[in-house]
């Protein structure tokens, strides 16, 4: 299966691109200009921290051979530092590494503009250890959910999106609202960045979904047959669901607010991608379009709820990832068809309520698990090192406070001089260069 192996190398690099730079751009454009660098840095730092943690104990805790606590997680020390892991598995390790990274990075959108970089760096390893690796083991690593519920989660509706969505909501609650929330305009400062980010996410998502194929054949010929057919289904479903979600979001906006917006298009794309993530191998074309459309409408409605709840989930991690993840995961119970690679009939295809029960169960367990452990981590950080920068720093802009930089100097007239100025350069003459 040379082709499969080559594809997985490409798919892994595509998913890496989803965090840096795609998610960083998508989120960065939505923040205010005084905090765009910090927002982008949260993604970049998540890449580095979670990536290192993943090869140390993440792979072992997710996919290691020693399942513990009845299948809730695997022993993080069995394969510590990829001990005894064959080189031939390294691409599989890296593929899964990129999933852990983007899941953690997704959370940052809920707590934009106000969190110390140091607290984020402390949070990341704790969160992936207590929330991400266990859920990855439960769903994909042969753990409890996969052995007790025949739930389908092709590429991470539960492990990635419900997980990140709940964590974002919990942290937004614990960390609190930005100064001026509900009073000051906090409109996106650069929607072109957001549009580029959304487009790159869509492109990278083919690695995410289509790369999530697991070969199950007994023979090389059977694996080739599976690879050559299943990838087409997941690719097509990912495509049409995203298109449907974008159109649905724009239609919702047009009806509710009078205009179809570029932010709505970008958001609809992500909502559709989220919803088709668990379901891309479970449904047919009509099912995929339905899931995308439902996700577009549901998420477009859900992003308004934070103002009713007075919850500053700044960039709508709950509204897009939790809601989209639940839509995609639970609709499998209705729209799953045995004609798709997953091979299970849902309610609308004569399969009764079994699949729906399994899907709802997997979603529910994910919500409770990550809700509990994220609360514990969030409170522990709140009452020790603290989460937030000072109110003055937040109002002046976290970019300068945390990083000593500002994102934009468009006309080059900020003024000032480099310090110290070497004596020879106090007055810089226009010369032909040192050797002239």
């Amino acid at each position, binding site marked *: 299966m040379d082709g499969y192996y080559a594809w997985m190398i490409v798919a892994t690099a595509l998913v890496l691109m989803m965090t840096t730079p795609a998610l960083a751009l998508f989120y960065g454009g939505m923040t205010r200009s005084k905090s765009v660098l910090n927002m982008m840095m949260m993604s970049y730092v998540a890449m580095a921290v979670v990536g290192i943690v993943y090869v140390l104990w993440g792979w072992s805790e997710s996919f290691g051979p020693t399942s513990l606590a009845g299948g809730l997680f695997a022993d993080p020390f069995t394969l510590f530092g990829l001990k005894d892991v064959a080189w031939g598995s390294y691409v599989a390790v890296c593929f899964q590494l990129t999933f852990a990274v983007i899941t953690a990075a997704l959370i940052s959108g809920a707590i934009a503009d106000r969190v110390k970089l140091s607290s984020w760096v402390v949070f990341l390893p704790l969160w992936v250890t207590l929330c991400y690796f266990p859920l990855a083991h439960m769903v994909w690593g042969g753990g409890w959910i996969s052995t007790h519920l025949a739930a389908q989660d092709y590429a991470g509706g539960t492990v990635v999106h419900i997980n990140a969505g709940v964590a974002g909501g919990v942290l937004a609650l614990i960390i609190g609202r930005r100064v001026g929330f509900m009073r000051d*305009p*906090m*409109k*996106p400062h650069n929607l072109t960045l957001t549009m580029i980010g959304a487009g790159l996410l869509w492109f990278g998502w083919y690695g995410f979904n289509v790369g999530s194929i697991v070969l199950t054949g007994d023979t090389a010929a059977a694996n080739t047959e599976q690879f050559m057919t299943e990838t087409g289904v997941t690719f097509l479903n990912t495509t049409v669901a995203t298109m449907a979600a974008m159109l649905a979001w724009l239609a919702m*906006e047009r009806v*509710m*607010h*009078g*205009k179809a*917006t570029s*932010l*709505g298009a970008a*958001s609809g794309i992500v909502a559709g991608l989220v919803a088709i993530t668990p379901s891309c191998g479970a449904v047919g074309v009509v099912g995929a379009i339905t899931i995308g459309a439902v996700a577009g409408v549901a998420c*477009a409605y859900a*992003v*308004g709820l934070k*103002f009713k709840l007075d919850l500053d989930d700044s960039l*709508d991690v709950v*509204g897009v990832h939790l809601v989209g993840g639940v839509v995609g995961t639970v609709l499998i119970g209705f729209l799953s068809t045995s004609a798709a690679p997953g091979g299970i009939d849902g309610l609308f295809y004569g399969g009764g309520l079994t699949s729906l029960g399994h899907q709802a169960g997997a979603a529910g367990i994910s919500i409770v698990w990550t809700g509990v452990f994220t609360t514990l981590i969030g409170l522990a950080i709140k009452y020790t090192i603290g989460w937030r920068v000072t109110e003055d720093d937040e109002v002046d802009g976290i970019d300068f406070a945390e990083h000593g930089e500002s994102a934009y100097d468009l006309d080059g007239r900020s003024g000032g001089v480099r310090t110290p100025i070497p004596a020879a350069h106090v007055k810089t003459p226009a010369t032909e260069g040192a050797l002239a």
Partner: protein
Amino acid sequence: MKLVTAVIKPHKWEEVREALETFGVTGMTVTEVSGYGRQKGHTEVYRGAEYDIALVPKIRIEIVADDGDAEDVVGIIQKTAQTGRIGDGKVWVTPVETVVRVRTGDRDAAAL
């Protein structure tokens, strides 16, 4: 000497510049500004969140003119920048004591 200052709609700027050049105005200072008048701002909706945006983008033109030309300059700007809709802007004239050309030291009318 008079300073004519105009705040106009951005899309009218090119038309106004051409008309002033035809009249014989040799230079001007132009800045992108934002502000509001009686029309106030407008509303924008982002993911369902509606914001009242107070400031509207405008172009500010500053021209120093001879006393005899100032009224004509005002008239040209007023006629060319007009759309008849709310938010067309304002023009005002202030007295200027003296003008110096930095390169030569010429003063007043010779400096324009």
